[in-house]
Structure formats: structure tokens, C-alpha cells
């Protein structure tokens, strides 16, 4: 498998984007957006993570098998989060059902 050399300017651009997004995160944290503070911060974090995975880890040109394993990793993280939240978000749901 041949590896193409990624131009330095691509890395520099991604690095710049990550710095800009970090600055955005800090700036947004100063605003009073209520629960949207959290949503904005997490959205920016996901975008930054995607940039790192796609460009610094060069997954956009990786084989299907590599992509499958990375997808599996995120799927496993999703399992952890979804089932964790299935507890935290459902506390008290069934408390008022007397026949249970």
C-alpha cells in the first residue's frame, strides 16, 4: 500500500482550525446561553475530534478495515454513554406504577 505524503500546509491549516475552535469554545463559555452552552461546547469538541481523526490520523484515506475498527471504537463508546444515560435519565420513571 502506497502512502501519499500530506502537504505541511494541510497540517498547518488543521492546526489553525483546532486553535480557532479552542478559542471559540473559550469565548462561548463566557456567554450565558443556558443549556446551549453545553451543546455548543460538545459540538465544537466533536468537530475537533473529527478533524484530528480524519487528518492527523489520516483516516480519510485509510482502508475500509481500519475505518471499520474506528467505527467499532466509537460504537462501543456510544454503548457506554447510551446505557449509562438509560440509568440516569430514567430514574423515577417506574416509581408511580403500583402494580410493578
Amino acid at each position, binding site marked *: 500500500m502506497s502512502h501519499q505524503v500530506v502537504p505541511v500546509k494541510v497540517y498547518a491549516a488543521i492546526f489553525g482550525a483546532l486553535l480557532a475552535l479552542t478559542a471559540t469554545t473559550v469565548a462561548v463559555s463566557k456567554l450565558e446561553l443556558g443549556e446551549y452552552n453545553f451543546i455548543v461546547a460538545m459540538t465544537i469538541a466533536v468537530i475537533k475530534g473529527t478533524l484530528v481523526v480524519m487528518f492527523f490520523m489520516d483516516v480519510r484515506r485509510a482502508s475500509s478495515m481500519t475505518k471499520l475498527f474506528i467505527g467499532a471504537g466509537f460504537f462501543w463508546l456510544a454503548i457506554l454513554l447510551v*446505557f449509562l444515560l438509560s*440509568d440516569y435519565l*430514567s*430514574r423515577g420513571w*417506574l416509581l408511580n406504577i403500583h402494580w410493578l
Partner: protein
Amino acid sequence: MNATLPFAQTETPINYLNADYGWKSWLFATDHKRIALLYLFSITAFFFVGGAFAVAMRINLLTPEGIFSHDTYNKLFTMHGIIMVFFFLVPSIPATLGNFLVPMMIGARDLAFPRINLLSWYIYIVGGIFTLTAVFQGGVDTGWTFYAPFSSSYSNTHVILAALGIFVSGFSSILTGLNFIVTIHKMRAPGMTWNRLPLFIWGHYATSLIQVLGTPVIAITMVLLGLERVLHAGIFDPTLGGDPILFQHLFWFYSHPAVYIMILPGMAVISEIVACFSRKAIFGYGFVAYSSIAIAVFSFIVWGHHLFVSGQSMYASMVFSFFSFLVAIPSAIKVFNWTATMYKGSISYETPMLYAFGFMGLFTIGGLTGLFLATMAIDVHVTDTYFVIAHFHYVMVGGMVMAYMGGIHFWFPKISGRLYPEGWAKFAALLVFAGFNLTFFPQFILGYQGMPRRYAHYPPEFQVLNVMSTAGASILALGYLIPMIYLAWAWRYGPKSPQNPWNAKGLEWEQSPTPPPTFNFEHQPVVTEPAYNYSGEEQEVKLG
């Protein structure tokens, strides 16, 4: 036995054992077989250290008033659990038999990353040193589960050292899993398609997935525990703003799948043994292969059954209970298929097969009592009682250790080039089976009657069953010591083994000398038949 051999063999061929004798050739070895032996000796040492703590506990429980203080007893069961789980059971079969056999079974010269393989052993040893240091400094008293906030805020013992040992040794587990996944994907011999892989390989592949995906979570959980203990970060301790149930979620997200890290390689060994000593192909190869993957996947969505009485929501408990029942299906498929394999087979009763029989019976009891615990109403009654202790020892010791012993005996001729004394081995296998049941079956009754785990003292009415359990433990200990002696003896003085003493199928037996040369095969093996082709027929097995 042929009494008239044509030529006396005067010179031993070069193999991985006699290729070099210096200490550097072992401590800097990149040969997967030598690294497997490094692991074998290390985990055996940890097994006996962990076993010593168990002996001390059983002696304490001979009488209701015990001989140790509560604090000492807390440390005994904690160190027993930590050492047995993280330093014996998790690495046991993958790091020893898996390391030795995965490349040989797929027709490769070594694992994909030999140096990383050696690194994993060093990491394991460093982790072990941290944990043993905690032992020698006075031990840890949190239980192997490290539940917060006791572990993070209140325990006065060496929690950080022990947690650091687990954190470090986890990387050893990840590296071994990574190595296996890449090796199985990339280094199979010509003709070794996925459909022809021995089930030992499928089992190790599934195990490796859990190791790679699950272990980072326990590592980060230990880091969070350390952050709270040292910096009072407020993650798990309610008085600092944390949530203790979050610790249990994160801990069991790894530690329940870890049960399958322990048992899947055991199942992998049993598949090989049952096929060989029944002289038949495994019944339903595809089902057994895919059930390993199914167990690996399901293993990650059942952890909440450890939290039924911890304050977890009722809805989440119902979901986790449902999935816990589901995991019984692939496990049962395996047991039924091994049984069906033996049906009309030409069964012989050599030692590995005795251990396989033991595994099937004891694992089935362990698995079925797991269904009791997945049922919320029963679990509330028996939570934190000896019923739970008996259940997981039936899986871990009755299942996993039986498989480990069976595997060690099955491949001992391949590993050492020698034959072990069959009579002694059968005697020890029967001792292990009898001793095990006498130790742990009474604990089911004790638990059902309400004796809680982790208590140094107990009411007098529980004494008879506890005496039975301790008596069984002494028999079990003897059953483990005897193989240590005769295997050590056979390694040096046992009769030389022919290449394939069991007439087993598989590249490691049929196409590699015994003991194997450094690079396993004299010629590149080419696979032309399905696995377990004991009937000699050229029938291809289709998956799915």
C-alpha cells in the same frame, strides 16, 4: 508403542528451547513461544500468591469466630481478588497458550509485532510489581472492585499502588489483544480462510476485541479514582459533588466483559480438546465460531446487573436484566454443540478430556446460576452473599481454570517436547473436580441461606457448610500442586514426545516439529482442508 525403532536418535534437532540458553535469549526474546513461557511462569507465580490468600481465608472461615481481624480479612479477600483477576485470569490462556499457539495455528512464523509482544510481558511484570508492593506495604482493603467513595476517600490502605498496578497491566492486555487481531487478519497461511480457522482462533479473536475495546475504560476509571483520592476532584464521592454509581457503571463496563476475556479463551481450548478426543469435527462449526463474537458483543450490554441494588433506575435494571438473559444463548450454543460433537464420537478419556468434561459440567452450573442472578427479584435476595461467590467461582475456576489445566496438558508435549505421566495427571484432574465441588457447592447453600460475603466472622449455624468448603479447598490445593510437580519433572525427565502424540488435527500438530523450531515451520504451510477434519473427508464448512 513400537518397540523396534529403526534408528536411535542421537542428536536433538534445533528447536525454540535449545536454540539458545543465555538469560538474554529469554529476557530479550521476541519469539512468541518463549514469551508465552515467560508469561506461563509469571502467571503461575501469581496464581500461587493469589491462592495463598484464598487458603488463609478458608482457614479463617473454619470457625465462626475466625482467627484474623476484620481488617486483615478485608485485605486477604481484596488481594486474592486483585491478583487472581488481573494477574492470573485475564492473561492466563491468551498470554500463554494463545501466545504460543495463535501464530502456529494459522501458519505464521510469529505474531505481527514480536517486540510489542515482549513489551506486553514487561508491562505486565511492572504492573505486578506495583501491586505486589501494595501487598508487602500492608495490602489493600477495598475489595477487588475498588468501590468509591470508600476507595477514593476513606480507605487508609495502599489503594493508589494497587490501582496503578491494574492501570499499567491493562496496557499489557491491550497490546496482546491488538497483536492477536492484526496477526489473525494479516498473517494467515495460504488456504487458511476464516471458515477454516480453528475455533481456538475465533475464541481468541473475540477475546482480543474485548481486551482492546474494554480495557481502556478500566484504565481511565482507575485514573479518575486516583484523581479523586489525591486531588479530591469530586467525581465519585457525593460529599465532593460526585456520584458513586458512576464508578460502578464505569468499573463494570470493563469488568463484566472481563469475565468473558477470562472464559472465551477457555471455551476456545475446550473446542480443540473435545474435537480431538471425540475424533470428530465440531458440530455446527459456524455457530460455535459466531457465538464467540456474539458473546463478545453481548458482554458489553449486561454490566448493569451488578447494580440492581445500588440505586440504578428500575428501567435500566430491566434492560440490563433482559440482555443478561440473552448472553446465555451463545453460551448455551457452545455447550450443546460440544455435547453434539461427542455424540457418536470415538471418545477417549485422556487427561485433557477429563478437564473438558469438568469444564462443561461446572461451567453449565456457573452459567445457569448466572441466570438466577440476572433475575432481579432473586438477585435482591442473594446480592453480596456466598451464592454470588459460588456462581462466579463455578465460571472462573470450574470453567476457566479447568480449561487452562486441560489446555496445558493438551499442548504440554508440543511446548516441552516431553510426555507427562498420564496416571498422575488423571488422578490430579479428578482431585481438582472433587475438591472444587466440595469447596464451592456448599457456598451456594450458604448464600441462599443468607451468609454475606466479605465477612470475617459468621453465625455458628453456618459452620458445617464452611468446614466442608475449607476441606474441599485443601483437596483442590493438592489437585493444583500435584501437576506442578509432575509437569516440572516431565519437562526434564519425561519420555520424549512424538510430533503428534494425540493424532490431533491442526497445523501446530501436523506440520510443525515437536518442540517447534524458532520460526515454527520448516516450510510455509498450505491449508487444503477444513478445521477438525478427523473424518478425512474433504467437506468444506460454510459459515452462516
